[in-house]
């Protein structure tokens, strides 16, 4: 049996970055991961490192995260292919009311230190000549970007390990019980781990663990649709996305330095978290390609060479569960990032480490309290 200051359950970006920042603070850490680190949502997502579009009161967390993304290479000792090449959010002519929303958002975001530029008409076309005729306006964030999700979490895990974190892959937690002041965590293969603090960063599996611990959360697990094109000359720097209330229309793309263009969004599939599997539905791929052509018609000439998906956990209000338990001392949650956890990931890890280490944080977390789901 092993004992440490903190046990982290779940080795996605949240768990791995939390382990890293806890070690930086000198706390001993044991991280348990069913599979290999960063193979689930954190390793399969689109890779947007985008602050714009997040709820305004999430921007402090996003700003904290971007600091880490920017220095990731030095901090972690390996490249996660972070490219600060901008992010562009556009809306279509059939929803002109979105322009006003974009302008309002830009004004609010400026207060929080995020500068956005609204582009329309000729200025928009001159800057982004590849946008389709239906595009009406765009909001450009020059200091956002994108990174390689396949590399990010393993890089945090390796760095945490170098600092002394214990990382157990192929280790699934099956139960956790408070015995005295310690949490006793049992794994599928019968091992027992103890710590006074337990942090649940189990992504799309977080609701099951929370329910086991007496704090059920309404939850859906879905599989977003991803595709990638063949490599073509590197021509499109910013990540591009559509702002729309319609799921089908919500597509985005980014070109990586090697030339491939990653396509994401449109309709999502059901997933099978118990089997750790999700499958791309072909009809979703077809719908995604249609919508991508609206956004950037020239992409219609390229080929996609591969599709994939991953399992993501969604809450009804699309906000994560993040912060202390409403019931037990020494228990913390950070899961259910509802399709937008990648950018803030390093900020989540750092904030949870701060909260665990010092008992407080200046980052606003009130909206993410698990008690918001407790029955009234």
């Amino acid at each position, binding site marked *: 049996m092993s004992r440490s200051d903190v046990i982290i359950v779940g080795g996605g970006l949240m768990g791995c970055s939390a382990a890293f920042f806890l070690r930086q603070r000198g706390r001993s850490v044991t991280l348990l991961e069913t599979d*290999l680190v960063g*193979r689930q949502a954190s*390793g399969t997502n689109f890779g947007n490192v985008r602050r714009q579009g997040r709820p305004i009161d999430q921007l402090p967390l996003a700003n904290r995260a971007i600091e880490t993304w920017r220095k990731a290479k030095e901090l972690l000792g390996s490249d996660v292919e972070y490219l600060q090449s901008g992010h562009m959010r556009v809306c279509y002519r059939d929803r002109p009311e979105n322009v006003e929303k974009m302008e309002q958002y830009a004004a609010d975001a400026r207060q929080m230190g995020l500068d956005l530029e609204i582009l329309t008409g000729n200025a928009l076309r001159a800057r982004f000549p590849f946008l389709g005729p239906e595009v009406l306006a765009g909001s450009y964030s020059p200091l956002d970007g994108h990174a390689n999700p*396949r*590399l990010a979490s*393993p890089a945090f895990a*390796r760095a945490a390990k170098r600092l002394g974190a214990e990382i157990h892959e192929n280790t699934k937690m099956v139960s956790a019980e408070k015995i005295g002041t310690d949490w006793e965590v049992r794994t599928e293969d019968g091992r027992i781990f103890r710590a006074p603090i337990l942090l649940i960063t189990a992504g799309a599996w977080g609701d099951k663990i929370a329910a086991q611990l007496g704090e059920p959360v309404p939850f859906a697990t879905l599989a977003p649709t991803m595709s990638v*094109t*063949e490599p073509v000359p590197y021509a499109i720097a910013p990540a591009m996305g559509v702002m729309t209330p319609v799921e089908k229309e919500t597509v985005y793309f980014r070109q990586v330095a090697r030339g491939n263009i990653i*396509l994401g969004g449109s309709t999502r599939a059901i997933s099978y978290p118990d089997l750790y599997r999700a*499958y*791309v*539905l*072909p*009809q979703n*791929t*077809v719908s995604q*390609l*249609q919508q*991508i*052509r609206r956004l950037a018609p020239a*992409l*219609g*000439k*390229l*080929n*996609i*060479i*591969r*599709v*994939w998906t991953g399992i993501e956990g969604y809450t009804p209000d699309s906000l994560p569960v993040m912060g202390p338990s409403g019931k037990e001392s020494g228990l913390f949650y950070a899961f259910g990032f509802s399709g937008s956890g990648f950018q803030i990931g390093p900020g989540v890890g750092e904030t949870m480490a701060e909260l665990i280490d010092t008992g407080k944080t200046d980052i606003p977390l009130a909206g993410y309290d698990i008690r918001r789901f407790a029955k009234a």
Partner: protein
Amino acid sequence: MAEPRVIAEPRVIIVGAGPAGVRAAEVLVASGVRPVVIDEGRRDGGQIYRRQPEGFTRGYDSLYGTEADRALSLHETFDGLKDKIDYRPDTLVWNISQGRVWTNANGRVDDLEYDALLLCTGATDRVMPVKGWQYAGVFSLGASQVALKSQAVSIGRRVVFMGSGPLLYLVASQYVKAGANVVAVLDTAPFFARIKALPKLLAEPGVLWNGIMLTRMLQKSGVRVMTGVKPLEILGEPETGVSSLQFEAGGKVHEIACDAVAMGHHLRPETQLADLARCAFRFDAVTRQWLPVVDADGRSSVDGVYLAGDGARILGARSAEASGQLAAMTLLSDFGIAASDRWALRQAVANYARFATGLAEAFPWPHEQIADLADDVVLCRCEGVTVGEMRRVDAREANRAKAFNRVGMGRCQGRYCGLAGAEVLAAARDLPVEAIGRLRGQAPVKPISVGVAEDEA
């Protein structure tokens, strides 16, 4: 065995119009079923009985040699079936999901529901990377045959055939007969491996005899034939391509000037669709490949999905015909349509399997040579990833390695790098190759355009 699923007119889809698919369609039609037959090729025939384009005039003997009668019979059978089946040539099946196949024909996507799906997807070359194999002028062995059969061209003016397996000798001799300049046939298998495998090869004496005649014919024509070869390097220039080939044989280093190299180590089944249909796989120690699980009658592990021909396991063209018939009969009986005695076909397939094991032993996959490749050899041609990058990757499993170094992530989806990559990683981690696992198949099995349009139903 499960109760028959009685459906008056089951919707049957066959993917692949090679020997396996054609014979399966024939059996189904004879029982009154009208299958959909989908093939991405312009014409039927599959690989071995590939038909040349309309307007070409070479006769069956020149195209198919000793197999001319079989080719003719297969083509005539298929021509006779055309109005009794729903034949969709030039149509790629790019995904399978929820009981439907998804097709792409000329940029239009469509989906078709099935009660039973018979996958007869055939094979592609298994290749061993060699330093310089990324140069223009290096082709797969199968490619060199396609060039000749369907286009009447040679892949070069001085052609070297390198690799192992019966196809190596066959294609080289077809080149010689067609008047191409074959400078050498270099076999990585040592000659004694063939002697050892003789008892199993005697399962098919006719095929064995044809093989022996081929080697004699090559030698008589003055082609240098060498066994026990270790390829060293394909030399050339980035701009102009291959200029020569270096290899070791009999303890000496040789260099042969050439402008084309055809390389192949036997074949590997095209299993992506079986994977997308969620069929279970097993590791086959004889060929060191992962194969879809299939019972003696052609059933996969998934209800309603059947596998036949080289797409299930490399047993050759004759076995493909037999296993296509067998799977179709099994399907008919599973759906309560017709029951016939399958014993003889089962026996035939088992016999081909014995022969195929003999071939695998006579012409082994040189996995030790692959484990030995230098760090700077390109392993993945699509993404330009080297053997050294595979050795250094922080992974012990194929899909994890792919996530980090992109081997298997490129345009070919790992068809040409997956098997060699697993050997390199296994050797570097000191693990058995089966522990490395297999690259999971992902749609689309071949690229589709972002511009695809949906068919208005």
